[in-house]
């Protein structure tokens, strides 16, 4: 049985703004699905529709096979982790965690057991009597997660839970969330605008733009085989070039004539390749490109190089090490298998 399903869900707010259009999504039990997209793409609106805070204008929401489209949040088998943690400031850590089970009339012994177990799992046993304002951001996020898990929901909804944490802590809490998700086996719907977070955590990624789903797939799939120019550009960095089809195996671009493995279909608008796809030190074979560098940005493990093109965006290359400077002439190869075709428009 599907843990969560949305069918033709749309949302139009009172001021006429259309936040979501025709969202169809099925999430399997125990799956970790991330809603990924830029600000204003409708991902949080969709999450709040799943939670019951917003009613969809059209469409249907099912939780574990039950229609919950019009059910209020308190009647849904979901729990939410909020961006601001939303801990009850007047209650201690333990009382915050106990709030949900108490509300659901779980007996005192079971409640205490759950609270103690969760405190141990999120490593906050020594902080159980503290008020939330005495905890760090990471600790508060762990309390929020424990509070959500305490009601044993079948689906946990995460609304950009790591956005208030610094980079190092974000990675640590990210691992903790994924670890707890695997341990408890709950279904997770996770909202973020951070593509690295989405790729690292998810079983599947739902890339959204302008209230619509652009692509759904495993992280490797959306990264390696983006279907639209937006997905290619939003997830990682991508070089997008207009092209003209020459024959079944080659296209004409601003980089010159390129041999391709895929054949572009009629909806394809751009040729796409990743900066790390450039192969250096190769002097023979197809798709050898020589160009002058216009910009260089050292990134630690690699150096980003820019190649200017007439009537097309700069193309970016990721060169391991630092052995290139502005004005240098370099040669690289693009493997035909690494060249994709995507539909859609550039932002």
């Amino acid at each position, binding site marked *: 049985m599907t843990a969560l399903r949305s069918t033709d869900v749309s949302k139009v707010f009172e001021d006429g703004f259309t936040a979501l259009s025709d969202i169809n999504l099925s999430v399997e039990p125990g799956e970790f699905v991330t809603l990924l997209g830029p600000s204003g793409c409708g991902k949080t609106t969709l999450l709040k529709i799943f939670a019951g805070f917003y009613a969809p204008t059209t469409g249907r929401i099912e939780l574990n096979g039950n229609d919950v489209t019009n059910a209020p949040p308190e009647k849904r088998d979901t729990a*939410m982790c909020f961006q601001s943690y939303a801990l*009850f400031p007047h209650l201690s850590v333990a009382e915050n965690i106990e709030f949900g089970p108490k509300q659901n009339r779980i007996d005192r012994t079971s409640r205490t057991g759950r609270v103690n177990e969760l405190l141990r799992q999120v490593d906050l046993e020594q902080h159980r009597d503290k008020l939330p304002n005495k905890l760090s951001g990471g600790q508060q996020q762990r309390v929020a997660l424990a509070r959500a898990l305490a009601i044993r929901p079948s689906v946990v909804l995460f609304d950009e839970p790591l956005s208030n944490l610094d980079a190092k802590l974000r990675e640590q809490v990210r691992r903790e969330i994924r670890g707890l998700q695997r341990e408890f086996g709950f279904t997770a719907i996770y909202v973020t605008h951070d593509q690295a977070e989405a790729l690292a955590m998810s079983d599947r990624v739902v890339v959204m733009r302008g209230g619509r789903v652009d692509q759904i797939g495993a992280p490797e799939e959306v990264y390696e085989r983006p279907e639209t120019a937006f997905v290619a550009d939003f997830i990682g960095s991508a070089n997008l070039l207009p092209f003209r089809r020459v024959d079944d195996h080659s296209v004409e671009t601003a980089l010159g004539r390129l041999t391709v493995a895929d054949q572009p279909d009629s909806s394809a608008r751009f040729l796409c390749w990743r900066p790390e796809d450039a192969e250096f030190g190769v002097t023979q074979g197809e798709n050898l490109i020589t160009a002058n560098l216009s910009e260089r940005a050292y990134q630690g493990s690699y150096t980003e190089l820019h190649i200017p093109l007439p009537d097309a965006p700069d193309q970016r290359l990721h060169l391991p090490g630092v052995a290139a400077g502005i004005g240098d002439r370099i040669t690289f190869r693009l493997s035909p298998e690494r060249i994709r075709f995507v539909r859609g428009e550039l932002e």
Partner: protein
Amino acid sequence: MTLRRGLLILALLTPGLGVILLMIGSVFYVAVMQSVGFYNLTGEDSFSLEHWRKVLDSKQFGRALSYSAYIAVVASIGSVAIAYPIAIWLRRPFRGSLVISALLKAPLFVPGLVASFLFLNVIAYHGIVNQLLMWIGITNAPIRLQNDRGAWGVVFLQLWKNMPFALLLLTGAVQSISDEVLDAARDLGAGGFDRFRKVIAPLTVQAMQASLIIIFIGAAGDFAFQVTAGPTNVQSMAQYMVFLKDSFGRWNQAAAVGLSLMVLALFGSLMLAFTARILSKSGKW
């Protein structure tokens, strides 16, 4: 803190706090001394508890005390009880909410005596309430509504006058609670009433206490509403105090009543504030 620093702080506070303490202190001192036989208008000053005995033995005093306490409790709790749902309703702005909020606070700008007079005009024999009752056919002739023995008129006026004040304090406090905190409570299974008693009330308890205390003190010492629209078979403490002074020239007994009113105001408001704190902490109401 050094002595020098302490003295400096005291000196800096003196112009403000000193005047207040001097004013309150002198009034309180005179009232206390007068109630035990000093500061007489005529006759010799001498220490005596006779004035207190006469006041405390008086049935009129007992009735005035319980009546004022009753009005103050009903006014403070009633005002807060009415103001809370309105404050929650007005928590997030909507079309017209500003106008509604302004209208609800309008009674703050109407002096109590004027409000009483207007109220009497509405419920008097010739008022629109009686006219309406006769026009609908419920009564054949005007009925007496003013100065009712149950003090409903005074209670109404107290709520009308004090609810906006409670609303003023509670609106700010309720608005300071984030949407996400309330959403979290809802998400964890709390319905409307549970969200109020487990989240909103504890997080706004200070505004609630301030409302209860200030309204209680004002209502306990009410004179204008009582004299204009109150029942004629019982006096409020303030009315009784003035009555003793004006009708019999019993300044010393009036001072004893005044001090009793202060004790009632202090004790009652503290009790209400304490009860509000306990209830909001336990979440068992």
